[in-house]
Structure formats: C-alpha cells, structure tokens
C-alpha cells in the first residue's frame, strides 16, 4: 500500500478550497473554503505520518484542528460584529480600513 492517492486527494481538496477563497463574495463562505484548505493539509500530514511510520504528523494535525476551531470561533464573532456595523457580509463591501 502506498499513500500517494491520499496525498493526491489532499492536493485536490486544497485546490478546491483555494478556488472558494478566491471566488466567494460572502465572508462566511470564504471562512468555509479556508476550512476546506486546512482540512486538506491535515489529510496530507496524516498521510506522511503513515508513510514514515512516525506519529509526529498525526499530532501536528491534532494541533491544527484545535487552532482551526479557535480561528472559526473568533472569525465568526468578527463577522457578526461587522455585520451589525455595516449590514453586509460581502467581502468587497467591507472597507472599514480604507483610508
């Protein structure tokens, strides 16, 4: 058994996530696409961990999942706050920092 298909699957998912980040206008949609990319990187980490017979990759994926959950919680809180302020969650229209 080789891990090549698993790594390829991770690459495909990463590209799909990148496509979502580039094309979505909705901030929540962009967050979801970022989730997809992080998920893809986790698959590749676990596949390399299996390939080397070394548990470091699995543990790193474990840490990544935790950081991602924290990121989503704070990100969604920011989205809700910006939404209250601007009445929109379209990334193009949120120009609070534009001078």
């Amino acid at each position, binding site marked *: *058994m080789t891990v090549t298909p698993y790594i*390829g699957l991770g690459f495909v998912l990463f*590209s799909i996530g990148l496509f979502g980040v580039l*094309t979505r*206008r909705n901030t929540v949609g962009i967050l979801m*696409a970022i989730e997809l990319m992080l998920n893809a990187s986790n698959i590749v980490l*676990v596949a390399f961990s299996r*390939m080397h017979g070394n548990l470091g990759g*699995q543990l790193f994926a474990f840490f990544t999942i935790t950081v991602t959950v924290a990121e989503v919680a704070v990100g969604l*809180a920011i989205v809700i706050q910006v939404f209250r302020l601007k009445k929109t969650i379209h990334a193009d229209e949120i120009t609070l920092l534009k001078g």
Partner: protein
Amino acid sequence: MWIFWLIAIPLVLFALGVVLSKNLFRSTIYLGATLVLTALIYLLLHAELLGFIQILLYTGGVATLLVFAIMLTQRIVGEDITQQSRGLVGGAIASLAVLLILFFFLGSSQLDFSVRPYPENLNLALGKNLFVTYVLPFEVLSVLLLAAIIGAIVMARRDR
C-alpha cells in the same frame, strides 16, 4: 483500495458543493459531510483518535457554529442570504495552476511512498508523544482556546 475511492469521490464532490452552491446553508451541510468523510479517510490511515476528534470538534463544533452565524445574520437582516461568486474563470485558472504544480512535485519526487509500520500499541505511543514530548504545545493550545473563547464573547457582545 476500492473503499478509498468509495470515500474519496463523494468527498471531492461535496467539497465542490461547498464552494459552488448558491445557498449558504446548503454549503454548510456539504461542509459537514466533507468533514465526516475526512474522518473516515483518517480511519483508513490508522489515525483512529484523530478521526473521532475530527467528528467531535469539526462536525460537532465548527458546523454548529457556522449554522449559528448564518441564522443570526439572516435574522438581523430578515432575508435569505444567497451568495454570489465573482471571477470564476480567474479563480479556476489560479487553483488549477496550483493543483498542477502540486501534482508536478508529487510526480517528480524521489521519495518512497510505501507505508512503514506504526509503532506497536499506537495509542500508548500517541499518549506518550502528546503528554511527554509535545506537552508544552499542548498546554499553550489550552491557553489559546481560552483566549479564543473570551475573544469571541467580547467580539460578539451587543452592548459594550
């Protein structure tokens, strides 16, 4: 190997649904399905603990949070949030280019991709790694989670 394709093909289709669906709520459901199928991939790779953590944290936590956020923003505006995409052609070209580069590196690498055996008693080894070798990052993570909880509450509070 057939069981891998049985999981991987729906996984890619659901992922496409996440980035292409017009309805934001439907996107979230597809994302939940993607994350559950990823957990099955982890099970295939003998990462059982990680698979169950994935279902608990991602599907239980992240998907629920996303549904909450969508419901809240819909209630404030009082209309369904549809989402448009822009620059579909440019996005497709860029992501396909990244995909091609990644597969080029995969194809031209000299590594031996065959599986080497995990240590005997996987869970014992995992626990030792987590609580002895990597105990400092583990503790830092717990502080990070606390900071994230407080940050989320402070950010999302209505009156300040």
